[in-house]
């Protein structure tokens, strides 16, 4: 009984010490520098994939192919399609590419909690991590033309790119990007195909015709 009491007291003291790590005691130099590190980000719920017609695994090629009424249940989106190909990195880790094909339907919620409904023939999910920064994009393409529906209406384009980390959605039509960013409208990209500023073009191009004339004069003199 005595031992049990000691254990309880020790446990309570331990709890108190833990609880006091962020408390600043006046006049205590040690406590002035006591700051608990930033809390680690909460874990995300796992992504689940279901398929009715089985799956093939190329264990050497690190690829999994799911067939027949494939459903992807992710904390941030739901996807259905007929074929899903998952590239699994060598040695494990998060899949770096997932391709969904045929009758792709994606329902997701953006950063403002607005529901979006997207359809396409093909979608390519790409995941990468560089310097502690995660990039996740979903690119919709194919025929029929990808479409995105939400409370603002329906958008269609040759390519629709959804950047998951910030919720941006870019709709491209014949190579010109028109963007809608519900999360931060100031980040809207309007037209990425505008001609570039003057470049180091070679002599003889129309932009450098003055220089060409000058050089010709120099030679003849």
């Amino acid at each position: 009984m005595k031992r049990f009491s000691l254990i309880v007291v020790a446990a309570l003291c331990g709890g108190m010490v833990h609880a006091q790590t962020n408390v600043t005691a006046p006049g205590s130099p040690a406590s002035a520098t006591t700051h608990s590190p930033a809390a680690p980000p909460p874990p995300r719920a796992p992504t689940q994939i279901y398929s009715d017609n089985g799956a093939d695994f190329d264990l050497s090629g690190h690829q999994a192919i799911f067939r027949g009424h494939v459903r992807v249940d992710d904390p941030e989106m739901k996807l259905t399609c007929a074929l899903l190909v998952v590239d699994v990195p060598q040695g494990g880790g998060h899949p770096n590419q997932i391709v969904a094909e045929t009758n792709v339907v994606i329902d997701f919620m953006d950063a403002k909690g607005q529901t979006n409904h997207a359809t396409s023939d093909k979608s390519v999910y790409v995941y990468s991590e560089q310097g502690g920064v995660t990039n996740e994009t979903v690119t919709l393409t194919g025929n029929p033309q990808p479409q995105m529906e939400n409370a603002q209406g329906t958008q269609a384009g040759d390519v629709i790119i959804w950047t998951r980390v910030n919720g941006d959605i870019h709709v491209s039509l014949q190579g010109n990007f028109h963007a809608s960013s519900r999360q931060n409208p100031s980040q809207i990209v309007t037209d990425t195909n505008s001609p570039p500023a003057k470049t180091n073009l070679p002599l003889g191009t129309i932009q450098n015709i003055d220089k060409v004339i000058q050089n010709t004069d120099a030679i003849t003199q």
Partner: protein
Amino acid sequence: MNAKANITMTLLAAGAGWLFAIAPGVRAQQNGVQHASDFTSREYYGSTNQQQQVKSILSGAEALPQPGGLLTITQLKLEIFSPDGKLEWVVNAPECVYDTFKGVANSPGHLQVRTGDGKFRVAGNEGFLWRQSDNFLTISNNVRAVIENGAKMNTKP
């Protein structure tokens, strides 16, 4: 020779492709297949610098020879390693039949596959077929996979 070694040698004699690497000379005894239990066997990559890197480890609770070169294996566990020694895949099945002539394993039952780090896991309950020649696995019908996402995304550079 101890009892466990005997078991392994017996299984080798069954002609299972996984097992050839240990004692290829035993293959000549293919007709003398016997029951084996609590077995483990290794397959190796080609030797480099006189060191043999494990390619796969097969283990099981029991191996029961059947007519026609078949082998019923219970509590199968297959671990596949990369050439640099990383555990890439782990395959578990409560029971399967391995065809020692064709080099294929199949079962009408449960199978579980996971990556070495466990972040990608797949399970099926309605049968599978594994082809040893190209390391290709087919899981029948209803399949469920889980991808662990880890921590929430860091969006700030």
